[in-house]
């Protein structure tokens, strides 16, 4: 692969940044690193990278603050959240702020590179955990969805999300559902859009996730 997306790395721990940098290897080009919200916004505006790898918790704010700060200054870039947190609130808030995906720091180097490239190309990245959150958030029956286009997943989208939660890669999903990879990408981008725009109450009320049926 010759295409080398440029990346800004935002994390407050030097060791984590060094580790992620080593995992990314030379398949992406890390152009800057930042340790807090202010630094990150400046670096992103300054270097306009293809992708920002963004920690959810920073000393002076959250990943969502970085996204808002960049958007407010007219920056155009794609964000991929990378965090140790697996609390649904953290995940959903950064996605709703505009991140194109969410992966945990336990992710293998090569999968991380794939995720960065996928985000750089405009696709969405769902880790199994994020896919699980999505299914949960959209699964509770609501009598009258405000906007069915945004508040409900189509059967096909549900299928894709379930396969992602089961650990399938896009290629494997495509094979399993006998559709093209492009179609899988379209479905997941559509789910991401719904996740960002839906007014479903469940998206913010994660107590529902804890339900015991």
């Amino acid at each position, binding site marked *: 692969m010759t295409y080398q997306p440029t990346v800004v790395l935002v994390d407050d721990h030097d060791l984590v940044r060094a580790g992620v940098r080593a995992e990314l290897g030379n398949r992406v080009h890390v152009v800057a690193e930042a340790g807090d919200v202010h630094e990150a916004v400046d670096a992103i505006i300054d270097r306009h990278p293809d992708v920002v790898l963004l920690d959810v918790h920073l000393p002076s704010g959250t990943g969502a603050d970085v996204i808002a700060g960049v958007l407010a200054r007219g920056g155009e870039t794609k964000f991929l959240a990378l965090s140790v947190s697996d609390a649904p609130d953290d995940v959903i808030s950064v996605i709703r702020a505009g991140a194109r995906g969410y992966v945990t720091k336990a992710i293998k180097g090569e999968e991380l590179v794939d995720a960065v490239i996928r985000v750089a190309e405009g696709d969405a990245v769902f880790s199994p955990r994020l896919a*699980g959150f999505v299914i949960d958030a959209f699964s509770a029956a609501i009598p009258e969805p405000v906007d069915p286009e945004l508040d409900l997943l189509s059967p096909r989208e549900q299928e894709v999300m379930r396969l992602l939660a089961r650990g399938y890669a896009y290629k494997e999903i495509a094979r399993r559902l006998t559709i093209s990879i492009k179609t899988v990408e379209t479905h997941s981008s559509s789910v991401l859009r719904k996740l960002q725009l839906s007014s479903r109450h469940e998206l913010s009320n994660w107590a529902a996730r804890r*339900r015991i049926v």
Partner: protein
Amino acid sequence: MVSAPTQSAGSGSSHWQMPVPDSIDRILGGVSGGIAREVGLETIWIRLSFVVLFAIGGWGGLLYLVAWGFMAQMEYLGRGPATEPVPKGRSGRRRGIGAGLVVLALIVFFGGLPGVGSDLMWPLGVLFAGILLVSRQVGTARLATTGGRFGTLQLIGGVVVALGGITLLLFSTFDSGNSVGMAGISIIAGVMVAIGLVALSAPWWWRMVRDLDKERQARIRSDERAEVAAHLHDSVLQTLTLIQKQGNDPQTMRNLARRQERELRNWLDPDRADRSGQSVRGQLDEMATEVEDLHGVPVEVVVVGDCLVNEPVAAALAAAREAAVNAAKHSGAARVDVYAEVAESGLELFVRDTGIGFNVEAIAADRRGVRESLQGRMARAGGSVTIYSEPGAGTEIEISVPRPEASNPTNEGPSDQ
């Protein structure tokens, strides 16, 4: 004019605060100094005001006593300015002027100018002096310690003086010619003594309530701290020690770190910890930890929804465990994915690896044991198992079990467990 809040700009603080006695700039109780500091005037003007007011029927003295008691109380409660008073006016000359003013006021007061209401002045003055003595004593002593003999004396003295003030007040009312009978007087006396006692003991009660509250909060905080410390000691520190000893075995180190991570996450998420053990989510987390420990392959668990474990669900979880163990042992995959979805209709479990896979039909004979045990177990529980595998493309085992009480609208899960 004395307490005009608009003057406070000069004091350097941005907003008006309750004055507290000035411990440095003082002659009697530091009242004038304290007010001056808050209002932003020279202390001398406040002093002069008190003196002039004192000369007119003694009101200044009364005011001073009331302010003293009140401000001492404020200081004790910590409501005053947080900053230490700026040392000023400590010079002997200023003190001299202040003392001179007090003496002047006393001379003027005794020498004439008996103003209006001076009949009430002495009893009220004595009463407030008593209250001041008591509240100062209560204000400075800790609840547990009596403050020594002097403190006790001060306390008793305060009570006596205050009661004396009440008596004087009574007599002065009596003297002023009201034609109330003896019964009336004793009722008034009783009421006034009661009021006096309440007024005297109020600071003490206030203080006691506050102290108890403070102590309770401190205890809660230290309990929490002790609990956190104990937990970290048992878990994280223990693991770090183990990791240092296992420095030459990366696999063990990884397992230790991973197990600790899981444990810490569970501990941080009270919801999860609350129902670990009896729910699908809790059981799967435990299973993943065990399999990781035994076989050194990470097991990623994603659960949607949750339910309590009943017999068929327990069978499904046991089957999932067996599938995960097989995947970890034989597939050669770097990771095992477990996905569980709890719906109204039942529980679905998927255990997946991207390892070597196998030909389900061809291998049926020698893997019979595994298949039989999985499928037999699930059949008995009323569920089913499906195995998808292909050489080179990994394996996925789908386990599903219906919920017998699916028609039951209650959200409580099985109660017969």
